[in-house]
């Protein structure tokens, strides 16, 4: 039970990072990032290869690039940078002044192409088998801890990171930068006519979001000690969309509630339950439920459970 709860906590914090990243990109910036999970994967693979040690070449049981053994916490830094770099590259051609539905299509297609590439170019990150044996950070220093104790220590570590990222996104959301980003979302032409550069603001949000996704991937790969294409199917992106839409797009706490409901209760809890029906039934039902939840939410509560707050100002409060 203790193992179960600590694992769920790690998932929750990691998924909260994804939700904040998507909330910044989609909720504030209006970017339909249907490739979200790709940026998490970039971070996960990056953290894995720089902590697995060198690939020993022919005869090694897994093949990958950039193998090295960076000490904690450098793999997470690399993961963050990898997510940001990939976002910079993808954003530079997908976020131009084109219609938003085309942006969505481009991002989804890029995500699918990259999945195909990573799966089939085996020398890159070991293809469809993925990478295993990723060393768990500080396991030497923390060797006095029991397996269970280590799990809890890791959950606490992800909580610290989540708190730091929360402070960052909360600050950005209420800042002039966040307001300018929301203006671009609402009307790009009007935003430009007051001097804001829509393409540059969107790209900034995309890269910051990509870095947060990369960080979340690094945390997850080090926790799971492995990472493979099965971990980042495009459906995962839609689970994050469902989470933020259910919780309340634009609201930093709302999307955390959505993450708790969708990513933890709907998607993770059933995997710890005893098997019901034939194999795979629960998995299939989950995705049916996620899809239905999204539709129901858009129909009856489009602004989510905790909608974005109206920022009320009063003249009396003036200095």
């Amino acid at each position, binding site marked *: 039970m203790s193992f179960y709860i600590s694992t769920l906590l790690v998932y929750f914090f990691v998924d909260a990072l994804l939700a904040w990243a998507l909330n910044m990109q989609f909720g504030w910036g209006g970017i339909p990032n249907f490739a979200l999970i790709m940026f998490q994967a970039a971070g996960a693979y990056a953290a894995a290869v720089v902590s697995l040690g060198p690939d020993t070449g022919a005869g090694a049981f897994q093949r990958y690039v950039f193998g090295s053994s960076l000490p904690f916490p450098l793999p997470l830094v690399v993961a963050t940078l990898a997510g940001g770099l990939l976002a910079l590259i993808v954003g530079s051609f997908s976020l131009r002044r084109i219609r938003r539905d085309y942006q969505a299509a481009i991002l989804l297609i890029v995500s699918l192409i990259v999945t195909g590439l990573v799966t089939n170019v085996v020398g890159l990150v070991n293809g469809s088998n993925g990478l295993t044996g990723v060393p768990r950070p500080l396991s030497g220093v923390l060797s006095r801890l029991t397996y269970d104790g280590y799990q809890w220590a890791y959950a606490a570590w992800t909580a610290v990171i989540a708190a730091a990222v929360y402070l*960052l996104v909360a*600050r*950005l959301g209420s*800042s*002039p*930068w*966040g*307001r*300018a980003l*929301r*203006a671009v*979302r*609402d*009307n790009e*032409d*009007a*935003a*430009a*006519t*007051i*001097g*804001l*550069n*829509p393409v540059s*603001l969107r790209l*900034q949000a995309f890269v910051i979001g990509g870095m947060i996704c990369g960080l979340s991937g690094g945390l997850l790969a080090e926790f799971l000690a492995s990472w493979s294409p099965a971990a980042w199917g495009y459906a995962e992106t839609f689970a994050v969309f469902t989470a933020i839409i259910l919780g309340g797009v*634009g609201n930093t706490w709302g999307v955390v509630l959505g993450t708790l409901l969708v990513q933890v209760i709907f998607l993770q809890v059933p995997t710890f339950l005893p098997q019901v029906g034939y194999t795979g039934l629960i998995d299939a039902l989950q995705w049916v439920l996620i899809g239905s939840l999204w539709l129901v939410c858009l129909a009856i509560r489009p602004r989510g459970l905790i909608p*974005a707050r*109206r*920022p*009320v*100002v009063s*003249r009396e409060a*003036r*200095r």
Partner: protein
Amino acid sequence: MTVGGPAVTAGGPAVTAGPVLAVSEVTVRFGGVVAVRDASLELREKEVVGLIGPNGAGKSSLIGALGGQIPVTRGRVLLGGADITAAPPHRRARLGLCRTFQLTSTFDDLTVFENLLVAALGADGSRLRSSLAGGRARQARVAAAMDSVWDRLTEFDMAEVANLYGSELSGGQRRLVEIMRCLMRSPRVLLLDEPMVGVAPHLVERIQGECQRIRDSGVSIIIVEHALEVVQAICDRVVVMASGSVVAQATYAEAMSSGAVREAYFA
């Protein structure tokens, strides 16, 4: 950054002798269609120019070319002497040229207050670095911008709706927000694309009055308008377009008695 005082003020560099906006032989082509052909006009300091003509005359294309939304195929556009022919819209805005749109362009999920505040802070006040790190300097700048927004709202008698979302406003209120938002940038040139469309009659008069007040404060205005009584009331001069070309530039009365203009309208 310039933050307006209690009254409408024109910012930017000191008045130069030449026209604020000079358009010379501008052509706008969409594929094989020529929407604007060799159009030339000048806008002087503190002047309201009406851009009129029948549907399809090229008025909105010309406004788009001036605002930077539509690329200029040939010709030059100078703003206060600076060549802005190829500049993107946000750069033109930073040089003092703001516009409104035929379809009202309020930021619908921002409150009226935020609509104005985001403009008052502008690109300089919205930088990522200062938003992350800025301490007291940023707070002071935001506070000053907020004060200027309250002043503007009071001046336009719109303080009551400060906390309404853009989507909650009437057509006329949305127009006023668009105009106020431009004014937060202290522009030198204001382009108004059919500002009276979808506006209740009593607000038409109000917007008309505001235009005159804005002009008197030193801003030059080009207004595309179908309601000729509005044009007659507020424009110092009219530029008449037909089939993509400028056919007349004169006072309203002169233009209306010109044969070419009548032909353009009633042909």
